[in-house]
């Protein structure tokens, strides 16, 4: 009798130039929750893609219930009862919950759909595992938490008994995370085996039975959660001791740098206003964070402040100058720096080299150009200085094509550029998204240094850990409005979660923020 439901033995996978997986062994016991921990680029996704049939391993074997199997594509995986909840849900937005669950395995008699049969099976599963859903709701109208439950039901409907969760908590609120954790535990006690991919140590500590750690494509080891600590796991993951808690002095706010007054902005995606009558300010020497669940107007708010889109109404003041109708370039030249949310879309020209990206806003300054000709020597020298100062790792120095650099170093390059502009106001949106622990540590320190040197900092983050760690003042945004304001030292994540989901709200007036 096999103890392990899934065994991946000695798996190696090569991509041109790199070994994504190097002799990795992963053994999943029946009925356990097994966490797979590793930094970005450690090879977690590759390993799971191999198990799910998206890639073929170059070396090694996969065993299911002790028998060697070959998984050529996701259909094979499904036949072996392996299911996966992807980080970005694979749902048809305009279909109902029921239609989404049966999609691909529709029960039918001679080609006629038998929805009633499907419905009763789904409701049965839903009850058994405590997965509350409304089978007739349209997917685009339901919450992210419910969408995730639909994804889980999809796996259960297909009688999968190995469930892979790929970073499932990234999009959830604290309350939803707690709920997911209890669902996962329930699934495990009912005999399902769960692989839980994450880099959030706290979640692994709460829910997992065992944890396998990968680092740079190599297998580091498997530990029992009850025998380890979060610090121990992070040391395994990074290979050195990491300071999880940021050392931070009390903020000493000075004069107002950015003042936002009754700002209303149209939505990018719908006809409604994404930002409704929002007022707040950011002072010198403090980090103000806009917290909230993705899609509550943060993106539109930042676009309006930085000039990427026009506001419907309202006034923006930067260092006592009215910038409401000024261009992006004017704002950038008058003390505003912006570390954008999507570094590939907005932050970098990936096919330009590092030096060209470093002067993305400044190529016109006399320092870098003369009579319309770019002074490439000066640009290169400046880029080399920043590479040194900010420890940007790149193969060919200033001439490295940015596309070939790692995500962490791309982000460092943007941060170097934006900080070295010596701004009055630094706007930073999700500055550590998708980065590993080492890079996050570095970037948080850099932002904090900016605060201490008297800059005003506006941070938008979806990661509550980051919000709590970094900010001095927290503004919670819900459906385009500011619904709560807190000092970060006087609030806990549970309370923030209540505000973020709209369960609680305060009346924030202009006067209150002053």
């Amino acid at each position, binding site marked *: 009798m096999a103890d392990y439901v899934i065994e991946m033995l000695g798996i190696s996978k090569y991509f041109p130039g790199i070994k994504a997986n190097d002799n990795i062994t992963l053994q999943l016991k029946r009925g356990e929750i097994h966490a797979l921990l590793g930094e970005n680029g450690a090879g977690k996704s590759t390993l799971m893609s191999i198990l799910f049939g998206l890639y073929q391993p170059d070396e090694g074997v996969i065993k299911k219930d002790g028998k060697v199997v070959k998984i050529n594509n996701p259909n094979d995986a499904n036949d072996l009862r392996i299911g996966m909840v992807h980080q970005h849900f694979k749902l048809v937005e305009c279909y109902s919950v029921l239609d989404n669950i049966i999609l691909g395995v529709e029960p039918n008699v001679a080609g006629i759909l038998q929805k009633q049969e499907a419905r009763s099976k789904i409701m049965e599963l839903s009850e058994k595992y405590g997965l509350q859903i409304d089978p007739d709701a349209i997917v685009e109208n339901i919450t992210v938490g419910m969408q995730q439950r639909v994804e889980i039901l999809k796996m259960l409907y297909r009688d999968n008994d190995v469930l892979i969760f790929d970073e499932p908590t990234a999009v959830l609120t604290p309350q939803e995370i707690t709920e997911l954790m209890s669902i996962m535990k329930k699934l495990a006690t009912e005999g399902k085996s769960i692989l839980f991919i994450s880099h959030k140590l706290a979640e692994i500590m709460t829910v997992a039975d065992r944890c396998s750690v990968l680092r740079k494509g190599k297998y580091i080891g498997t530990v029992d959660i009850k025998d380890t600590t979060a610090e121990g796991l992070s040391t395994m993951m990074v290979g050195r001791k990491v300071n999880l808690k940021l050392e931070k002095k009390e903020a000493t706010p000075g004069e107002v740098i950015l003042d936002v007054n009754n700002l209303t902005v149209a939505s990018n995606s719908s006809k409604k206003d994404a930002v409704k009558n929002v007022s707040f300010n950011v002072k010198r020497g403090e980090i103000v964070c806009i917290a909230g669940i993705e899609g509550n107007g943060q993106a539109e708010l930042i676009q309006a402040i930085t000039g990427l889109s026009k506001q419907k109404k309202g006034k923006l003041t930067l260092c006592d100058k009215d910038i409401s109708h000024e261009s992006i*370039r004017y704002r950038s030249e008058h003390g505003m720096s912006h570390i954008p949310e999507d570094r590939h879309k907005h932050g970098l020209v990936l096919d330009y080299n590092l030096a060209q990206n470093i002067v993305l806003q400044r190529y016109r300054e006399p320092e870098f150009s003369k009579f*319309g*000709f770019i002074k490439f020597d000066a640009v290169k020298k400046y880029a080399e200085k920043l590479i040194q100062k900010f420890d940007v790792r790149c193969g060919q120095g200033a001439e490295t094509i940015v596309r070939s650099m790692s995500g962490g170093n791309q982000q460092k390059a943007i941060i170097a550029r934006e900080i070295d502009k010596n701004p009055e106001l630094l706007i930073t949106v999700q500055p550590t998204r998708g980065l590993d622990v080492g890079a996050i540590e570095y970037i948080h320190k850099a932002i904090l240094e900016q605060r201490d040197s008297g800059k005003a900092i506006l941070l938008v983050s979806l990661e509550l850990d980051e919000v709590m760690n970094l900010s001095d003042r927290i503004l919670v945004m819900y459906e385009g409005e500011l619904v709560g304001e807190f000092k970060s030292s006087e609030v806990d994540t549970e309370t923030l979660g209540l505000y973020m989901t709209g369960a609680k709200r305060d009346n924030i007036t202009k006067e209150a923020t002053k």
Partner: protein
Amino acid sequence: MKKGIAIISSIVCILVGLLFGLILLCIIDPADSISLGFSPLILSGLSTAFDPNWIAAGTNLMKLGQEIANAMPIIMTGLSVAFAFKMGLFNIGAAGQYTLGAFGALYCALVLKCPWYVCLLAATLLGAIWGMLPGLLKAYLNINEVISCIMLNWIGLYGVNTIMCSNDKMFNSSQAKAYQVGVVNKSALIPDSIFGWNISETFNYAATNTGIIFAVVIAIIILIVLNKTTFGYELKACGYNKDAAKYAGINDKRNIILAMVISGALAGFGAGLFYLSGTVQWNPLDSTALPAAGFDGITVALLGLVNPIGCIFSGLFISHISVGGTMMQQSIFPSEISQLITGLIVYLCAFSPIMQEKLTKLFEAHKKIKHDVNKEEK
């Protein structure tokens, strides 16, 4: 390294295209395929250059001259397409801008009797205006430039033909063609000589003139603008990543319009060079055909790796092959085979990124083996 691989992949495209041509010639007539078909096709003007009979007659460089004269306009339209490409725009309207350019040149030459530089300027200006229209539509109304360019091509062609036919100073009804510039207004012809060197006489071909020098100089200017100036920096940033350019405060609307204006001006200039060379005549009754030079520009730009200097060489090459096509034994081999080959080469060019990737891998593997061997020797 990267550039080297790109050039190699372009050459591979050409070789495969030629191989295909050879196979085709063999199918048509295996016995004469090399001597009367393939050899004149690929040697083209070079076959006569060293032929003693032609040397004796003093016309040995004539075919090379023809190649150069035909290359002038397509180098310019190639630059036009390549320039727009750098901004991320597909200027399929080079044909229309070229048509307008031809009209501007001919109107100034035949009706207003202007000297050549005024004619050339008029050609450039009209091309620029015709390029600006899709630019404006794209920048302010977000209308896809490909669609507006195609429509403007036909609007331009029919407009030009209608005006030309109704103007008896331009349209020679007895020949059913526009008047010859060389006959009506000699001052409108582009000069043959530069620094005492008469290019036309050297090649013994009237249409070969200083125009080719203009084309080369402009290619170099475009290269400098793209690679050394802030304008080129902005333009390429917009082309590579529009959102990042906007984030950086670059005015993308202005750059879209400017890029199309310059692109159109280049195509118009090319038409000016061609129609002011003396021998060619516009045929306004042939109203169903847009000038081929406009579309050849796409070929030239792609084969030239969207590089201004590359456009010079690819323009010369395509002209070389098409002259070669006319030099094959016409009773056996149709000259259109040369067009078939260029068509195939362009088609292969579309796959060149895949080929470049494979080549890079090949080189890397080779380097690695060499590296490992070196290591072991140590």
